[in-house]
């Protein structure tokens, strides 16, 4: 990701943080506020980052994916379902059930990726449609099963939600996490850590390896790739499936890492925000991550402003209107996309099926 972009984003985040710190400093130490805001930022950013990585892999290979939302939602449900089944029916201890749950979530995402590839690569179905199908299908299937399994009379858990095996344990980085106060930042759950690692892995894969070179070629000029013997369909299939798996991991965050329960529609549009993050990050993993962090920071900004509502000086009264403050991330995105940090350019063949 280019320097300009990173600087700009750093400034935004710093700005959001400092406003809150200025308001809250009388009652709470700045360092404490900062720490809690960073912690919030990271956890909010986790699913967005993974979603955006999903988008990046798909679109770098030339397949647009607006089905991220549906992929996440389904993964969240089936991962959670698995962990509960293992834990309550087969009495597997919590941690393994959770880990297998994560695996199933990734698998779910991968399968939906396969569906997306099958439709848009093999059948050359318009990619927007195929994404839409996935979104609607996910809403229906998760809602339907959630009802059938956990609510109806005679359903396996006798109509009430069983005791979920909890959430993934926090992993503290030895040393760093011992730092007084600020150490909290280095206590995150596994998916959050994985997301950050994956950002760098993805960046490496896309720009330093053979796979990456071919992926980008297929997304920019599939025919050229074809003429040097690269199997365009294969590349697209695999990348979309990889993307699906990433989205799946993102889904696992909701039900296995964040809270031990599933709600219909609980992904709550984050799949679409991920799309924004991907474009905003100019189709690069690092960029996508930075964008996700901006959304995270904006969320932290909002929560903390309400937290310190009573301390907000009268001349800033509008900051007390949580609806207005809630606009921050969206307006920021629009400003940034409006070219403030240079135009974003999508892969040339993005969204177009390859005709031999």
């Amino acid at each position, binding site marked *: 990701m280019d320097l300009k972009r990173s600087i700009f984003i750093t400034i935004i985040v710093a700005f959001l943080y400092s406003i809150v710190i200025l308001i809250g400093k009388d009652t709470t130490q700045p360092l404490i506020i900062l720490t809690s805001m960073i912690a919030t930022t990271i956890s909010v950013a986790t699913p967005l980052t993974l979603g955006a990585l999903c988008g990046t892999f798909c679109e770098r290979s030339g397949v647009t994916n607006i089905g991220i939302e549906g992929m996440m939602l389904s993964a969240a449900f089936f991962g959670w379902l698995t962990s509960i089944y293992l834990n309550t029916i087969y009495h597997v201890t919590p941690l393994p059930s959770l880990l297998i749950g994560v695996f199933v979530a990734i698998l779910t995402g991968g399968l939906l990726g396969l569906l997306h590839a099958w439709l848009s690569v093999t059948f050359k179905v318009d990619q927007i449609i195929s994404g839409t199908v996935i979104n609607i299908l996910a809403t229906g299937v998760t809602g339907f099963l959630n009802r059938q399994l956990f609510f109806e009379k005679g359903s396996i858990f006798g109509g009430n939600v069983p005791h979920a095996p909890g959430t993934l344990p926090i992993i503290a980085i030895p040393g760093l996490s011992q730092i007084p106060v600020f150490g909290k930042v280095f206590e995150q759950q596994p998916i959050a850590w994985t997301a950050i690692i994956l950002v760098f892995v993805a960046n490496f894969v896309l720009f*330093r*390896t*053979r796979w990456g*070179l*071919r992926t*980008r*070629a297929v997304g*920019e*000029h599939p*025919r*050229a*790739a*074809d*003429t*040097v*013997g*690269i*199997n365009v369909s294969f590349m697209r299939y695999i990348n979309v499936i990889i993307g699906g798996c990433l989205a799946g991991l993102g889904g696992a965050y909701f039900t296995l890492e964040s809270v031990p329960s599933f709600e219909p529609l609980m992904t709550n549009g984050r799949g679409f925000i991920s799309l924004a993050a991907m474009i905003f990050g100019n189709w690069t993993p690092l960029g996508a991550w930075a964008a996700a962090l901006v959304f995270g920071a904006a969320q932290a900004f909002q929560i903390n402003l309400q937290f310190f509502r009573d301390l907000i000086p009268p001349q800033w009264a509008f900051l007390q209107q949580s609806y207005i403050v809630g606009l921050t991330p969206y307006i920021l995105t629009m400003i940034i996309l409006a070219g403030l940090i240079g135009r974003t350019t999508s892969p*040339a063949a993005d969204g177009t099926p390859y005709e*031999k």
Partner: protein
Amino acid sequence: MDTVLEVKGITKKFPGVLANDHVDFNLRKGEIHALLGENGAGKSTLMNIIYGLTSPDDGEILINGKATHFHSPKDAIACGIGMVHQHFMLVPVFTVAENIMLGSEKLRNGVLDIVQVNKDLKELSTQYGLEIDPTSLVHDLPVGIQQRVEIIKALYRKAEILILDEPTAVLTPQEVEDLFIIIRKLVDQGISVIFITHKLKEVLSIADRITVMRGGKVIATDDPKQTNEQALASQMVGRTVILKVDKTPAKPGDVVLSVKDLHVQDDRKIETVRGVSFEVRKGEILGIAGVQGNGQTELAEAMTGLRHAISGEIRIQDQNVFNHPPRDLVEKGMGHIPEDRQKHGFVMQYPISDNLVLCSYYVSPFCRRGVLQNSAIGTNAENLIKRFDIRTPSPYVPTSKLSGGNQQKVIVARELSRNIKFLVANQPTRGLDVGSIEYIHHEIVQMRDEGIGVVLISAELDEIMALSDRIAVMYHGEIVAILPADKVTREELGLMMAGSLKPEVSTI
């Protein structure tokens, strides 16, 4: 000489088209075998089959005598076949090195080994005398160099058989010369070359054998010493063609279009037109000759309102139209045959009838009170299709279904059917066969005779020589000379375009 490649009875049907019809063809070691044929004759299809891009419905391919079956270009490459495609197959945003290694990457413990590739390229370059900077981005390179990259790409894969599909369509005499030198070098090193073109001169000058295709069939295979342009042309088109345009001397009227000290930048903000000035009079053809990438594209775009110029002056008759939008220019009497027909020329998905009114859909009789008059549009189409002999089953088939030649005729018909004062024709015959070329040339000359001023931009020296009354040579974004067509030879022009001859003839 032993045969390295032989195809027997290749047949390929596309929906509605028999692209290849029992084609037999062979290539001997170290020979240059030219393949001639009009648009849609089936040349590219045949080559795509040999290169494993398309699979034939019938027939067999033998490499060095043994039958082979290609599932993908991978197999063809493995058999030592390399192909430079009609439309380059390079990823614009990749570097030369990335483009060349793509598909056969060099790795050091899992990571792309750019260093190694660059080293290999240095060697290749020196071996064949192909200068190239591996680190530059392809979209920054002029077409000539891009083609060089394509050739190196093939050699890098140890190609024994090299297919060149219309390699000279976009080159200038100078570049063509360089290319021929390269090709000969390759042949000396034992590489065999298949060379596709529409240009008879080239064929005669370089080929060892010439095969002519028409309507998907092989018509004949000749020996260049035994044949001549006229004969080849007839074989291609299946009738006698008049190759030289016959035109009476121009009777120039007053100035219709004048350009003064025009400065234009390209997309990458590099100034590619640096203070160009010229005038075009009614009833004359001003040819602008120049090597691709010397600013003709930007010049044309600026003249036709497709690109914002930095400074200068453009006048139609006496009105200043500098940086006016295209519509305004059109209404002031501009006609424009764009360089990239498929990009600017028309909407592929539209029926021919709509594309024939693309610039005039909004005026009577085609549109009244904001409502399109389909009957008028339809009759207009039928008339033009008759008058310009566009080969199509009906005015309502999608334009994408037409051959390149017919597509071009749709544009010519559209532009010439409007009553225009001047015409900017940019590469009007690129990629077209002699038949279509002959036809379009005749139309342009007729326009001139009807008192229209024509700016003809072309990399085809022959075209320039054949049509122009005056010739302006463009080099590095400047016009180095404007000469009367009869006062300059092909050779001089070639040299000026290459910037190696400073004209003593003063600009008129």
